[in-house]
């Protein structure tokens, strides 16, 4: 069993906490409760090549840009999930900026680009080809229905193991 740290980052209220709750506890709540600081969870997975991997998932608050304190949160991450909200085009802009600060902080590690709240059936603007190219995987998810959630974590685990 290997243990890896991954982070989930993005603007506030894009559904980071909800995605983790869906993945770890298979549970969803309509209610919005701001995350302050960081919340840790763990979950074990098996990759397609048979590697057992334990993910330590850091749910990082996304209210502001990455402050100095928050920069320390990302340290040592083997990969991350970059989330934006399909119903708020603004959050795609934030995702780009957050991505830039993360690269500045820890260099380039694998990340999955996720457009969440796909259940709202909204045709959102597509992310830049540049950002998509850098990601190891891009997909649309819904923490509400569970669509794409397990695939997101699986894709990141695969990339972390093979990277």
């Amino acid at each position, binding site marked *: 069993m290997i243990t890896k740290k991954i982070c989930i980052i993005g603007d506030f209220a894009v559904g980071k906490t909800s995605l983790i709750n869906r993945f770890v506890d298979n549970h969803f709540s309509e209610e919005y409760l701001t995350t302050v600081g960081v919340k840790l969870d763990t979950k074990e997975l098996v990759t397609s090549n048979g590697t057992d991997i334990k993910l330590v998932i850091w749910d990082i608050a996304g209210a502001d840009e990455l402050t100095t304190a928050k920069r320390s949160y990302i340290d040592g*991450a083997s990969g991350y999930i970059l989330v934006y909200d399909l119903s708020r085009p603004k959050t795609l802009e934030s995702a780009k900026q957050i991505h830039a600060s993360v690269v500045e902080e820890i260099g380039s590690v694998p990340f999955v680009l996720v457009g969440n709240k796909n259940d709202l059936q909204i045709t959102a603007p597509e992310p830049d080809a540049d950002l998509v190219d850098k990601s190891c995987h891009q997909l649309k998810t819904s923490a509400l229905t569970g669509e794409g959630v397990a695939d997101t974590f699986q894709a990141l685990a695969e990339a972390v193991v093979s990277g």
Partner: protein
Amino acid sequence: MKVMTNNNPPISDSVNDFIIERLNIAGFSFDNDHLLITADGNIEYYFPNPNTIASDTVASDLFPFLVGIDPLNEKEFPYIEMPNGVIVDAFIKPTSAGYDVVLIDMALQRDKHQQVQQIANVVSLQKDEISAENEAKSKFISTFSHELKTPLSSILGYSELLNEPDKTGINIAANANAIHRNGIYLLNLINNVLEQGRADIQQTTITTSPVKLSDMLDSVSYLVKPLADKKKINFSIHYGCPEDFVLVLDEQHLCQVLVNLITNSIKFSQEGFITIEVNYKDNELQFIVSDTGIGIPEDELSTIMQPFGRAKHTRHIEGAGIGLSLSNTLVKLMGGDLSIQSKLGEGTAVTVTVPTTNAVIASQLNGDAQMSINRQILVAEDDEDLVPLIAYYLEEAGYEVITAMSQDELKSELESNQPAVILMDHNFREANGIELTKELLDNGFSGKIIMLTASSGEAIIKQAMNAGCSDFISKPIDREKLHKILAKHLND
């Protein structure tokens, strides 16, 4: 318990312990192989089960936040919520033997901070929502103004033509028709907005009355057919039930719904067909408005019915205005249902069902018996312009009309006639129509009295009904309404 401090504690051990208890501080020392050497402080607070902290436990098993980081660099992680729910500030400090991890309980502080941040985030989300709403509204206003201009320019154009009567070849009747039609169309647009406003504050009232199906659909067709003709779209109505069914319906709102649906169909069609299918079964009236237009993408079907105020994504309302969402609201208010089936590039079918009662076939109603019915109407009204207009409306519907412009005239007419109905002006010259009604009924008038009032105030209507009036009609007098109310009172 003793906590690791420097060699010269400035306070006594008991005070020190007290502080540690209150602050819930705990310290853990690890060697260079990441194995636990000692733990001190209020450890039970963090690990209620002490078995989890046997010596030589691996650091990252105790503290998942250590995974991936190099503990030989000093580090601080504020506000970490651990998988077991405890909330700490974690400090990592290198030592000569390895490193220490110090935890301080931050549950209270984090919760306070969380409350403040929550408010800030929610406010920010609401601000975004409001600006999206405003954007949708201003887009709506520009679309709406544009839509108003089309019928208005027709009205202006045709009325100008009417002003040039010298020119030969001008068909006055057709021009007047076009003006009238565009006027009604304009009214429908404005009604949509007013109705949406009312629906938003839940003030729409559903008023039902007996309506002949074909009459209602003829007036819809009168309005929309020329629009379809202009785009060379074939517009037709198919009845799956007798055309002259009389049903109890909210005609005004139902017409509004149909006009909205059909004008949408016209807007989104370049050619082809638009049909209305009318069916009646089990006290339910069904309309299917189908077109061969551009259709609606599947992923937009669920959002297309949101009015501009609530639409998260404004582009749906562009062109479609509020017609569809309002129609949906109105149909729901009537206790009915509206659903859309659509295929991109093939067309759209909107099905509306509304509950109704008392289907009667009109032709059976107006049988021979009708011939013997007293069809004389006395119009007691002092407005010189209004009297001939009302008389015209009545005569065209086959009523016999007598008029009285004063109280004296009224009395003398009643000496020689027995009208079936008196249309009584509420302010009849020097007299009060309500008092006059009472007087006539007391003196044995056996017909019905219908009040004409300029106000639709409830108090006046109540007074009129209490005085013995059978009904009321508000001014300006709507021709169809007049016919309908008279038909109702002369048939029962």
